[in-house]
């Protein structure tokens, strides 16, 4: 079965640079979620999109922005990178339209490991 695809899988950037992470949800999934997992920590919710509109916002820094496109893929843009941004960034997708919020199950991608030097 098709899974969530994330690219790139690994990314190395310098401080103050920008980075763009991409997420391709499972086909027919309409909702995308972004999570950040620091070393040895649990995933922290950043932001989510349902039908190309932002549906929820968590602890996402102002330096970060994201959007969901017409083909439902999503991009997380990160500017003025800091050392503390080094983490594993997970994207998850679900189908709120078919399952409804009461039965939403998120399926996670392999993550993008961002290292800021």
């Amino acid at each position, binding site marked *: 079965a098709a899974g969530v695809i994330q690219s790139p899988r690994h990314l190395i950037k310098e401080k103050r640079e920008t980075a763009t992470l991409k997420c391709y949800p499972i086909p027919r999934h309409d*909702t995308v*979620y972004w*999570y950040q997992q620091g070393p040895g*920590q*649990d*995933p*922290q*919710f950043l932001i*989510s999109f*349902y039908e190309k509109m932002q*549906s*929820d916002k*968590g602890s996402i820094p102002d330096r970060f922005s994201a959007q969901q496109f017409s083909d439902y893929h999503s991009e997380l843009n990160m500017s003025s990178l800091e050392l503390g941004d080094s983490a594993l960034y*997970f994207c*998850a997708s*679900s189908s*709120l339209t078919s399952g409804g*919020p*009461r*039965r*939403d*199950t*998120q*399926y*996670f*991608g*392999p*993550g993008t490991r961002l290292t800021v030097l």
Partner: protein
Amino acid sequence: AQSVSQHNHHVILSEAASLELGCNYSYGGTVNLFWYVQYPGQHLQLLLKYFSGDPLVKGIKGFEAEFIKSKFSFNLRKPSVQWSDTAEYFCAVNPTTSGTYKYIFGTGTRLKVLA
């Protein structure tokens, strides 16, 4: 604030031992509950989930979990662990009536199974 607690941060077991990992959450409304497993260097994989109905849910790889509403708990169990179960286990809660779809994760439990 909503939170999820996993009290066992590190667990070491021998093969064939029984496993129980605790998960408690703080939210008074209706919740969806999940257990995910993260093998070393890999992404989160869904083990099992609870939405409603029978509070004892069975998942993949012989795992099961029991939802006890009065205790706000959703503990994960496996009767006999294998070396291949070595991984990190995350409990996640989706407070469905709060108007949000995000998951709140626990801090994870690192399980090491000795061969």
